[in-house]
């Protein structure tokens, strides 16, 4: 019975179920803290631990999902193209904001990791933590970081951004919709953007554009850094 159930398709079916539960909870509780992926990971993690299933068994099915991350990243070009007019109109603020934001993100991660005595592997895992998951995980792999740490750090960063950044910016009297949108999207990618959309149409569009542009900037900075160092 156990062997019959321990198949790749079972794990795929359970993964979809866990994510569905996460989505429903998120919709019902209406709070970004209840992130569907985080809920799904906790549920699936509990199932694997309780049934004593080795991760390799799960990955026989899960690896199939990871395969689709590349086309999912390529698909990020579509929302940028759809907002082409908005991008052209605000090209300079978006490029400059995403570039400086990415530099500060990478720089502050390196500095704080040194300060807290975290090793190089962990530092490399956290360097791309502000950008969208598919780009961040890929960059972490290139740098020799631990990709699961990067994936989770990216979600947590998104949650911090979605929950705290709107109030933080308001506190600093930063209210211009273009500025708020670019700041949230650069610092906390799609999870933050889901909150920026609630603030207003311009905030949402700017934040959405900043996801792709900041991802690109960070990829270039990391590649440049790797070439120089």
């Amino acid at each position: 019975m156990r062997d019959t159930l321990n198949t790749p398709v079972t794990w795929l079916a359970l993964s979809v179920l866990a994510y569905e539960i996460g989505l429903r909870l998120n919709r019902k509780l209406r709070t970004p803290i209840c992130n569907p992926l985080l809920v799904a990971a906790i549920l699936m993690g509990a199932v694997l631990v309780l049934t004593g299933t080795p991760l390799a068994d799960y990955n026989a099915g899960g690896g199939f999902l990871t395969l689709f991350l590349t086309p999912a990243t390529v698909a990020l070009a579509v929302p940028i193209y759809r907002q082409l007019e908005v991008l052209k109109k605000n090209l300079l603020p978006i490029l400059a904001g995403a570039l400086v934001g990415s530099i500060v993100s990478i720089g502050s991660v390196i500095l704080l990791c040194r300060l807290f005595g975290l090793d190089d592997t962990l530092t490399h895992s956290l360097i791309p933590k502000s950008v969208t998951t598919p780009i961040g995980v890929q960059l972490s792999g290139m740098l020799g970081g631990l990709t699961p740490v990067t994936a989770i750090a990216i979600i947590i960063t998104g949650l911090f951004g979605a929950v705290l950044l709107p109030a933080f910016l308001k506190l600093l009297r930063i209210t211009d919709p273009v500025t708020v949108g670019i700041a949230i999207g650069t610092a906390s990618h799609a999870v933050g953007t889901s909150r920026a959309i609630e603030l207003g149409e311009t905030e949402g569009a700017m934040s959405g554009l900043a996801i792709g542009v900041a991802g690109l900037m960070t990829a270039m900075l990391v590649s440049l850094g790797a070439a120089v160092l």
Partner: protein
Amino acid sequence: MKYLRQLGILFALCTAGELLAYAVGGRLPGNVLGMMLMFVLLCTGLLKLSHVEETADFFLKNMAFFFLPACLGILELFEQLRPVLGRLLLVCLITTFLTALAAAGTVKLVLALQRRHADKKEVG
């Protein structure tokens, strides 16, 4: 067939991205180059939105789901991470504020400069 064809185009773009990554010596990830390539193809009209739209939207809408296996990789690392967990969270928290602050400050500056430039033009 439509969805299958769209999926085929997306996979082809992924392959092209990997080839480009190889061409630049692996300095940029293939998926990012694939994304840039698709953006350029859309802008030049060589690729129409209708060639990829529904399948791309499916991936965008459900992107997070595909990261579930990546997140579960943490199970094998948990013991190793336990002593540094608090510090990792703190780094994430502080850098998120700093990043947003830097981006907001830069945008504010650029917008102010642009406005001043526009005003000067009007006066001149």
